[in-house]
């Protein structure tokens, strides 16, 4: 008898609150809408690469009448392939330089005894306050005197120099939270400062370093001002500047321009989707604490 009384009570599930269901529905709809708002422009850009000028202007939101890849092929052959190569070289080399120098700097600023350290920290991080545009004219003269004006090296050097303060700021914040016992244990085992950096601290900083890499990719891939001023020839121009050469005041093939934009956005979108886990974790780890 008693069992019969108990079982219905245990089996009885509490009635779901209708407001919770409505709330969840609203939230999910909002997130779906947000997803559409973010993804639709990208999709529209990719679809416009299949359209002619007439279709783009007269029915911008319709599907393409002809699914031909000709605009993509033309864009690729009209210099986009070269711009992609330039962007890859500049981005990859400046990433390596920026992250290594910044990590080494952050290590020095957090885990070594240097006299006047707060001053040094202020000096390095103060670089974030410097506007690149203000330094443009002297930089042109400097690059010309170095003999690297209109070469990939000019952009690699500038991107590295102007991103070191911010990257150091991120890595330093992360390193401050790593226990100092690790360094002491390593020292007792006879490790040098270089070994502590390479074998202990750097591997532990992996999440923030991945975040820094992604942030740098976003910056270097899309940077326009330096690329416009410091490169001139088609061989050295990166994507943002190269894309403008596909457009002209008179007679632009917009299908080709959209195709080129899609090609240029593709690597960055792929990288972001592949690494978003690190990106969000590393960024919050580095900045939140």
């Amino acid at each position, binding site marked *: 008898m008693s069992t019969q009384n108990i079982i219905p009570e245990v089996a009885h599930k509490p009635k779901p609150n209708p407001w919770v269901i409505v709330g969840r529905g609203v939230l999910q709809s909002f997130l779906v809408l947000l997803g559409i708002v973010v993804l639709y422009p990208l999709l529209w850009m990719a679809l416009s690469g299949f359209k002619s000028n007439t279709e783009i202007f007269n029915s911008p939101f319709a599907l393409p009448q002809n699914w031909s890849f000709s605009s993509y092929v033309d864009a690729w052959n009209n210099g986009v392939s070269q711009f992609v190569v330039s962007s890859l070289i500049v981005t990859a080399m400046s990433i390596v330089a920026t992250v290594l120098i910044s990590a080494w700097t952050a290590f020095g600023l957090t885990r070594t005894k240097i006299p006047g350290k707060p001053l040094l920290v202020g000096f390095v991080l103060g670089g974030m306050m410097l506007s690149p545009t203000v330094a443009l004219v002297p930089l042109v003269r400097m690059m010309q005197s170095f003999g690297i004006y209109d070469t990939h090296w000019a952009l690699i050097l500038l991107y590295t120099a102007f991103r070191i303060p911010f990257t150091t700021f991120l890595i330093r914040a992360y390193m401050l939270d790593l226990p100092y016992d690790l360094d002491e244990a390593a020292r007792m085992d006879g490790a040098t400062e270089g070994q502590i950096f390479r074998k202990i601290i750097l591997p532990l900083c992996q999440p923030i370093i991945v975040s820094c890499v992604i942030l740098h990719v976003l910056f270097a891939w899309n940077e326009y001002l330096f690329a416009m001023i410091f490169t001139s020839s088609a061989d050295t121009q990166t994507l943002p500047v190269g894309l403008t050469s*596909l457009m002209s005041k008179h007679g632009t093939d917009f299908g080709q321009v959209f195709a080129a934009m899609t090609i240029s956005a593709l690597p960055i979108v792929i990288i972001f989707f592949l690494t978003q886990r690190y990106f969000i974790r590393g960024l919050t780890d580095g900045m939140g604490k």
Partner: protein
Amino acid sequence: MEVFSKTTALALIFGCASLPPMAAQAEMADPNATVEYSGELSILTKFGMQRLQPYFIEMAKKYEALHPDVSISLIQEDDDSVKGKTKTLVASNSLPDIFFSWTGTWGGNFVRGDRAVDLSPVIGPDTDWGKTFAPAAVSAFMYNDKYYGIPLYLDAKFMGYSKPIFDELGIDVPKSHAELIEACKTIDAAGYLPVSFGNKEPWAGLHYLGQLLAYNVPQTVLEADYDPATATFDDPGYVAALNQFREFQDACTIGADVNAISYKTAIQQFSDGVSAMYYQEIIEFDSSAKPTTKLTPDDFGFFVLPPAEDAAGDHMALEGAPEGYMISSASENIPLAIDFMKFVTKPENARILSAPPFGQPPAVQGGADSENMNPSVVEGLDDIAEASYLIQWLDTVNHPRVASEWLSSFQAFVGGTKSAEDVVADVRTTAHSIRN
């Protein structure tokens, strides 16, 4: 994002460029100088667009083949980036030996700062080289009675029209402003858009006004008003021109909403056969009617925007200007730079520029390759040659602040928020404020 960074960049570059650069020294070309065919020559072009890029590359290769000790380095920019690049190069005192320049105040700034070589002894109208150009093209680069520029190609504004629509409705090419208005009414009644016009970029509308001012205001008055020191802007022709434009806008376009339409949309409407007319530059002829567009090159016709019969200005004037190159006064090899430009402007090389895919109407007489060129462009060149006076673009010939006032006030006029009298009054006030 890109637009933002670009605009900000240009604004900031302009700020940088206004820093005091090292003083430059005025130079004058020596027609008897010996050309030393050795060393490096740097050139800043405005042919950075994919279609035009190969021209200077080809010229440089040919010249280097003729003179093996000369090496040429090219900086090729497009319409927008050339502005930022030029300002940075000037500010850093590293202007190339040869550089692109527009006519009007843009070129005037190089002259004012002694950055450009006075080319009068080699390209003046009485010189051998000068005689090879269309006279109006050379004089467009005249500042303080001296010649500073080497015109490369010509540009002028014409009304392009769809022959099939005109034939269908039995309309003849309008010879006067009144006939144009009547033609618009007929086209509108037939369900076509008479003229596609986009004034989102306000220079597009100012091009109409420039031509109407040439018809309504005497040339001497116009030229006096370009200079803020002598500007009065009290000629009744200004208000008359604006009122003619209003009449045109009401009858031929969609009205005040043109301020929301880009000129690129307008040209597309013309190419798609939606509109019967589109006011365009001669260098747009090849792109507004292509074999692949609904309006084919055979369907394409053009005429000069017709004047009002009672207009008090010059009825044979045409709006347009050449674009060309200057020689840097800091160049270490001025004779070589001049020699290269003489090479580029030889008729056989000008013919390459005029033919597809470049299609730029050359400033050199006899430089048009009529066999390979679009026949409409060849005809347009004849009209340019016949014009009594080439009135330059209002936004480049005026002082930058006056130009800016013209652009904003005229856009407000088109939008219906300003009267003709107010536009002229505001431009006058701006000109006077510069003088004071």
